């Protein structure tokens, strides 16, 4: 029989060896809950993943700061763009910064000595990102609907929107881990914020790519943010069933970024 630890007082704590790993699903659930709580407790992360996207959505949809053209309404333009921004914020910038500092503080090293495997840890990080994205999606859709968004999409959108977001998440996560796992935490912090800012401007998020010269436009559409925002906009605003080009672009990014991350990631 395994002697159980008593909770009544310190004198009754038993250290009699009774080693054993918890079931993998329980470990992943515990790690996911811890990571999600850490993200939602962190002010800067909340600013990045929730507050800025929602502010951009509500302000730019209501105020004629940018002239979009292209025959769709301001809100039709903004909702898909902000969705792409939200995915980039969570899967790329937020994850890169959090993971970079976990590596720097030796947290990844310490977790490596626990029964939670590296695969289990990566799974927990992925589930955490998807959990935060679901929260973002609910809030973006709610705010969008409140301020008058009426999507014009085919029924295929229930498949293609999640597919595009999933591929975008995989691509951004691969890039985030490649960066966080190979360079210093401070450099990751700076670079992840800079990339976020540049792609906010050139990713078709709040500023239409159609306003750029055609060469630049095609280049920006080949970047993950441009591919995701353009793809989402085709589906949600233009009624396209399946934006093949953007999907393939994101798929290539996802495969390449994850391959690079697997190669360059250092746990300590």
């Amino acid at each position, binding site marked *: 029989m*395994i002697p*159980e*630890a*008593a*909770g*009544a*007082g*310190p004198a*009754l*704590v*038993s*250290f*009699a*060896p*009774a*080693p*054993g*790993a*918890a079931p993998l699903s*329980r*470990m992943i659930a*515990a*790690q996911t809950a*811890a990571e999600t*709580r*850490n993200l939602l*407790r*962190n002010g800067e992360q909340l600013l990045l993943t929730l507050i800025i996207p929602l502010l951009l959505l509500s302000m730019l949809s209501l105020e004629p700061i940018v002239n979009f053209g292209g025959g769709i309404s301001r809100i039709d333009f903004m909702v898909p763009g902000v969705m792409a921004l939200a995915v980039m914020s969570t899967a790329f910038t937020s994850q890169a910064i959090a993971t970079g500092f*976990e590596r720097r*503080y*030796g*947290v990844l*090293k*310490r977790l*490596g*000595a*626990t*029964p*939670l*495997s590296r695969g289990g840890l990566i799974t927990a990080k992925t589930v955490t990102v998807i959990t935060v994205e679901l929260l973002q999606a609910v809030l973006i859709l709610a705010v969008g609907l409140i301020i008058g968004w009426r999507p014009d999409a085919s029924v295929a959108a229930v498949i293609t929107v999640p597919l595009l977001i999933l591929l975008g998440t995989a691509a951004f996560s691969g890039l985030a881990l490649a960066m966080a796992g190979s360079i210093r935490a401070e450099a990751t912090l700076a670079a992840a914020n800079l990339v976020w800012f540049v792609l906010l401007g050139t990713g078709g998020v709040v500023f239409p790519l159609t306003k750029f010269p055609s060469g630049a436009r095609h280049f920006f559409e080949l970047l993950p943010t441009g591919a995701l925002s353009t793809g989402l906009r085709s589906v949600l605003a233009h009624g396209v069933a399946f934006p093949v080009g953007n999907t393939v672009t994101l798929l290539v990014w996802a495969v390449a970024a994850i391959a690079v991350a697997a190669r360059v990631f250092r746990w*300590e």
Partner: protein
Amino acid sequence: MSSAPAVEISGLVKRYGPATAVDGLTLSAARGAVTAILGPNGAGKTTTIEICEGYRHPDQGTVRVLGMRPGTSELRPRVGVMLQSGGIPPSVPAADFLTLLSRFHAHPVDPAALLELVGLSGSARTPYKRLSGGQQQRLSLAAAVIGRPELVFLDEPTAGMDPQARHATWELITGLRGAGVSVILTTHFMDEAERLADHVAIIDNGRMVAEGTPAELTGSAGQLRFRAEPGLDIEGLLAALPPGSMAKESPAGHYVIEVVGGVVDPTLLATVTAWCAERGVLANSLRIESRTLEDVFLELTGRELRG
């Protein structure tokens, strides 16, 4: 349960570029015992322990932990680890981190009871970065034992602790041993090794320089020490002592006498005091004592400062 030693290291070599951190180390740590790895800074203690934990790989030699290759998924639940520093997210409260780790194990110690045992119940909601250095060490120690492991690696467990926390930590380590847990710890505190360890391995420059029980290492080598005016005639004193005795003045006015066989007997004491009396010398603070582990350590590893 197999009867393999807790840790078996044989011919271990680890290099970092041109520097050799561990240079042919062979060491066996028994099950259920406390083994202390003692050495100056840069001796290779942390490298050795991190190879046992599976963080680094040997360049040469073999390491077996509970009879298995280090760091495997089969081994990890059976082994508790306390890193020398860090490993805990700065903004996470103490209780949350311990609870998280407890969920990775099948039969963990109750996190709240363990926090109380290490004296952190009052800081359960305090983020790691706001704990004092000693409190951080205690949380890290608690994390190493929460999964009820068979073996724990503690890398300088009492560094940065105040005397109360050190004693509480020693008590916990003694408790682990009493429960049958094998403990491997590194330290450069002599009193810690002397008090806790069943077996002490002194390493320097990546090599074993001595090992044994604390009693074996300090030997029965009795010493007679006294203080008197500086510049006594050491040669004359030696002539009065049994052949092979050793006498020295270090520092000035402090005299140490050691005899072959290491037993200071009443005759030796009488000889020394008589010799002093004939010269009108009053031997102050006269005492008979065994060598300390510190004496052995400094003798073996030298007195120069290490980086």
